């Protein structure tokens, strides 16, 4: 286990300077996510235009992995359709959990920086919380999401 692999420069940067941090008001959809084990809490806001995500923001508090992951997410999903978001989530999930994941890292862009998380199984939930929360927002769910 190499810490440098978990806390890659991109992760440290997005933790210190989260992108798209704040509230979208009004937002077409939003959802809350909590990880009761470690106390991570975040809210994801999205605006939609013709079925595509035109804007996304998040706010909340959490560990470096969860904050960086949410920050990277908001950058990655802009302009994407629901189907494309699902595709991206599937690839991120594979990168987070599978050692032999056959993922096109080039397609993932900066999200590939989350690849070090799979060596730290206890931290996978930190990275995936924002994605589950985004799904809930897109489903227009109002109930808080939990990773448990």
């Amino acid at each position, binding site marked *: *286990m190499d*810490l440098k692999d*978990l*806390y890659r420069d991109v992760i*440290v940067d997005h*933790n*210190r300077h989260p992108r798209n941090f704040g509230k979208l008001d009004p937002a077409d959809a939003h959802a809350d996510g909590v990880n009761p*084990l*470690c*106390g*991570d*809490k975040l809210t994801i806001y999205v605006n939609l235009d013709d079925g595509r995500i035109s804007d996304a923001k998040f706010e909340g*508090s*959490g*560990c*470096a*992995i969860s*904050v960086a992951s949410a920050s990277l997410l908001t950058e990655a999903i802009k302009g994407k359709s629901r189907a494309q978001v699902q595709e991206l989530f599937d690839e991120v999930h594979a990168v987070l959990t599978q050692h032999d994941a056959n993922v096109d890292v080039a397609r993932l862009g900066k999200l590939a920086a989350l690849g070090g998380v799979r060596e*730290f199984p*206890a*931290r996978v939930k*930190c990275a995936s919380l924002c994605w589950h929360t985004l799904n809930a927002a897109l489903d227009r769910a109002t109930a808080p999401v939990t990773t448990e």
Partner: protein
Amino acid sequence: MSAASVPRPRGVDFDVARIRRDFPILDQQINGKPLVFLDSAASSQRPLSVIEAIDHYYEHDHANVHRGVYTLSQRATDAYEGARETIRGFINARSTREIIYVRGTTEAINLVAQSYARPRLKPGDEILISALEHHANIVPWQLVCEQTGAQLKVIPISQTGEVDFAAFERLIGPRTRLLALAHVSNALGTIVPVERFIARAKEHKVPVLLDGAQAVPHSVVDVQALDCDFYCFSGHKMLGPTGIGVLYGRESLLEAMPPWQGGGDMILTVTFEKTTYNQLPWKFEAGTPAIADAIGLGAAIRYLQGIGMERIAAYEHELLEYATARLACIPGLRIIGTSPHKAAVVSFTMAGIHPHDIGTILDTEGVAVRTGHHCAMPVMDFFEVPATARASLSFYNTFEEIDRLVAALEHARKLLG
């Protein structure tokens, strides 16, 4: 004061190297570094004598207890009941009738909530707890309040993490039916001056339950001197096995309480019309109990007694003072829980670094600490932190291990701070 100027205590006449040889689990590498185990408040480690007592029981003496007339069953019963006597002596209860085996502190509190409180509570009655409590001393009372219409009242805590005695005096009154207090806070380490609270509760004729899960492993506990009515603790936090714990109850109260669970072993006679219950303590021990675990707990107590609880408390206090002084020198580190009277627990946050990241980084250095809310979410809310990192020390820890913790925290600060 700079970190380097904190003098390392010499250890009060305490051969920790020898003690560590009794704990085989401590002698291993984690991520290429020697293990530094600083999470004993969550669950302690076990000495060989406990592991061997359990092995010996299964290899030579196992049969069901209180059942057969044959030799093995008698041996198992003797060992199981012998452990009860060991526990009685350890906490100075009057009688083994007052020592109920349960799965742990959580089950002990639930037993009292359901068997003592529930039949007595009426709408408008009040249960008093403090804002320091572990979830195990909150939720069982919330459940019984929902069941009965009683109300849960909470004594506030101060910024140092101490239970507010003046507020307690205002809250206790003619409607109070029970006071349930942590003896030592698991999240902050605060030693609650329970004697004062008990004395005042007695004036109001309010019975007192103490959650002693964090007190029994680290100090002398005498239930008669405390004059409490219920005292609850867990085996696995005091070198014993998981799945075994103790409810001490004042005999007159236990006698008046109905059984909690029904089944074998808790009865004298059963017909379809009427069942008569067994005597104390077996009235509360339905079904085949955790025999090996009770025997293991007895062995754990004998190990603790072999060292002496006073010596353990004195050495752990030195560890606490050293750890507190060293951690206080780390820039951006905030210690949560600063009561002058503490058990060897240091809960803290670091500026700009989430406790979860601290936990991961420390683990790569071989250092095991707990991170999270410590099953005390209201305590976290009070201090307005999502979570803390917590180093909890035991007498098998060393001053060098505290140095390792400090070095690992400095590493975390360089990486993420």
